[in-house]
């Protein structure tokens, strides 16, 4: 089937129920999107599907037909994504970094939809797990990116 990722349409051959995550990683070779739990608990696999933050590890390939998928590889092509990345760098958010692709994608989706989020909006949208406990730095970076929007 055809899969549109980061504005490019790829023809992929995979079982229809293959998780989008593994199509992105193994078939298309884009490894910025991470496997953490496989059951939509941790959010390391977060991508945008038509702008919505989506956990790709439980998203069947067939369900995104005709939709537009954005991964971390294209994050800096989006003005909001660029601001989020700069806030992440300025705030020195990352530690091990493994969850941060998903965190940046979740933050980008939030700020695209809600440019000036309240603390409650941030808490509701930023639910991805971080075992390094960078949660305070993440929330501060989201506020920083919003302030510069």
């Amino acid at each position, binding site marked *: 089937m055809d899969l549109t990722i980061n504005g490019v349409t790829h023809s992929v051959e*995979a*079982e229809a129920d*293959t*998780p989008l995550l*593994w199509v992105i*990683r*193994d*078939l298309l*070779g884009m*490894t*910025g*999107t*991470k*496997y*953490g*739990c*496989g*059951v939509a*608990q*941790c959010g*390391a696999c977060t991508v945008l599907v038509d702008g919505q933050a989506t956990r790709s590890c439980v998203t069947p390939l067939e369900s995104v037909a005709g939709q537009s998928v954005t*991964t*971390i*590889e294209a*994050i*800096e092509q989006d003005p909001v994504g660029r601001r989020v*990345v700069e806030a*992440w*760098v300025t705030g*020195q*958010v*990352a*530690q*091990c*970094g*493994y*969850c*941060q*692709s998903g965190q*940046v994608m979740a933050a980008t989706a939030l700020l695209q939809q809600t440019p000036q989020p309240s603390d409650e909006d941030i*808490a509701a949208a*930023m*639910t*991805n*797990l*971080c*075992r*390094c*406990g*960078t*949660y*305070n*730095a*993440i*929330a501060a970076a989201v506020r920083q990116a919003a302030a510069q929007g």
Partner: protein
Amino acid sequence: MDGYTQAFFPAAELPQDQPVNLSRRGMLGAALGALVLGVALPSRAARAQQAAAPAATPGSRVLAFLEIRADGSVLLKSPFIEGGQGIDTAMAQIVGEELDADPARFVVECAPPGPDYALVNGMRITGGSFSTRSSYPVMRQLGAKARHMLIQAAATRLGVPAESLATEPGRVIHAASGRTLDYGALAAEAAALPVPDSAPLRAEKDFRYIGKPVARLDVRAKSTGKATYTIDLTAEGMLQAAVQHAPRLGCEPGAIANETAVRDMPGVHSIHRLPGAVAVVADRWWRARRAVEALEVTWNGPAADARNVLAADFSSQGMRAALAAAPGPGNAAETEGDAAAALRSAARTIEATYDAPYLAHGQLEPPSTIARWNADGTLDLWLPNQAPEMYQSVAAKLAGLAPEQVRIHSPLLGGFFGRHFLYDAASPFPQAIQLAKAVGRPVKLIWSREEEFLRDGFRPMGLARFRAGIGADGLPIALDVEAMGEGPAGRYFGTQPGAADPTVVEGISGKPYAIPNRRVAHVPVKHPAVIGFWRSVGHSMNDYFYETFFDEMAEAGGQDPYALRLRLLAEKPRHKALLEAVGELSGGWKRGPYDAADGTRRARGVAMASPFGSEVATIAEVSLKDGEVVVHDVWVAIDPGSIVNPAIIAAQVNSAVALGLSSALLEEVVYEGGVPQARNFDGYPILPPGRMPRVHVRIVESGAPMGGVGEPGLPGVPPAVVNAVAALTGQRIRSLPLSKARFGAV
């Protein structure tokens, strides 16, 4: 992992030619004169000399660590592995300070196995919060020697005395003539020069990088998905593999009912029986996983001579009962005065038993390994690890090779927390080696999260019995503690007969309080389960046991817990200052309960810890919401003696608070029927963002010898929280996690 580095690796595991005496550094530095700083290979003569020279003292060969490229960037081959703790940045700061090169110009990668990198007491590990403090003097000297060589090369090039030259970041300057030479242009010539025995170091007052909040080198790559971990790598022509382990450790695969059907599933290359597991190799990982999980395997009981068997009736509840029933007196770890006599004469005695569960590491990157057998019979392995030489040694034995025939590649770690030392049956690399051999192609094996929860080496369950004698003045005069169980140091490196395992008692022994009569002992009880090091190791539970019982002693004596700590630290100025610092940081000690501005009823708890050569004082503020503990603020004063990067220290304290709080609130591995029950984060919840408190950090530099940073922030958190809960509710929680406790209204 305090105080037992010598125990950490047995001598037998070390390469035989590896000197462990750092004092030989000066002597050998001169012997290995012709080294190369730049990209050029050593001259033939130099190579011959190196070949003839005795093995290098760790940290002496500049070439093994530094390569200055033509563009002036610096490649540093680090002895350590970056897994979030910021060690790559710290190494660049330390070397850059003395080399006179901006840390931002550094590219840091983990060095391959080799004796040059054995900088942790003659060994090489990334763990124990040892990296910076163990290597600091050596890495400074490396940078200084390299700078010296660059100046010598410039002196020759310019025809001026070396004494007339100075440096500024990245270049040599001749002030008299106004000429400058970039390091990149000098590297090849510097290469031909001898390495000095030593080189002058920069005065600490002139530091520009050390002690400053230098930006992390890896943060942009980690914010844009460009950072790569083992799980992201590929080898040309590789296949991918997934495994299904025996649910109960020790069982072996028997009949597979549907092997033919599974072989016909999409992408499947082959099906394999492995020790304690079955595997499917396929063209893609998802196909391998789907196929291996479709296999209907009969698991046979363990062989009579099998190692590491969990009995079919093993349970964590039964283990807790076994620990509680273990008789003392055990192996003494600390004895002061006469605790037994003082207990008999005390005005009042109290006793309590505390316990804490098995814990999973829960690092977000699931373990994986790429194994590639090469045409010349050698083996390349890419794998997450905290000790490359140790993996090399074990992999070589498994593969039937000499260690030097196994190349270990150590990519970034997607979290570690102690996960990636060698534990029995806990790493995918033996399976990957076997599968790659069997299929004749490189194989990437990834463990699913479910397999990871099944075979992680868990933080051991622990239990401790406390008895205290309180004098007529309300002060504790006697403390007798028996810590039951087994620690990872004893498990993997042994203990002397009759000696306590330090990883069982650390955080109960080594406390600073002036209690005149003390006995701390280890009562050995083996864990059938595979156990491992977990961030702050024994401290992760023992400081909870001790500091929470401390509050019970305070209450029994009618003392405020903060005031009693201050009083018992009267002769310990470093600890007393730190306790006062955290009190001040929190706006002045108040225990509560009290009503907060938002209408919640709150209270605070305090705890101290002395982990990994650093000192830490912690205060936490809690309330209850719907019967659940809410932690609002955590204040941490940390004294690592002296520091390299305050921003990274603050980040590590935040991180340690999160993990410590996660363990206090939520985490528990439950075994039933010999099998860990939770197989993913739905069954083993870890701290979510909504339960993260504000964290306030004060760094105190007392000037004491440099201590660790990565782990010390953790141990004070559970007791500070539980003491606050006691202040709020009157309930003493003596068994973690708090999610098991039921609280009424307050």
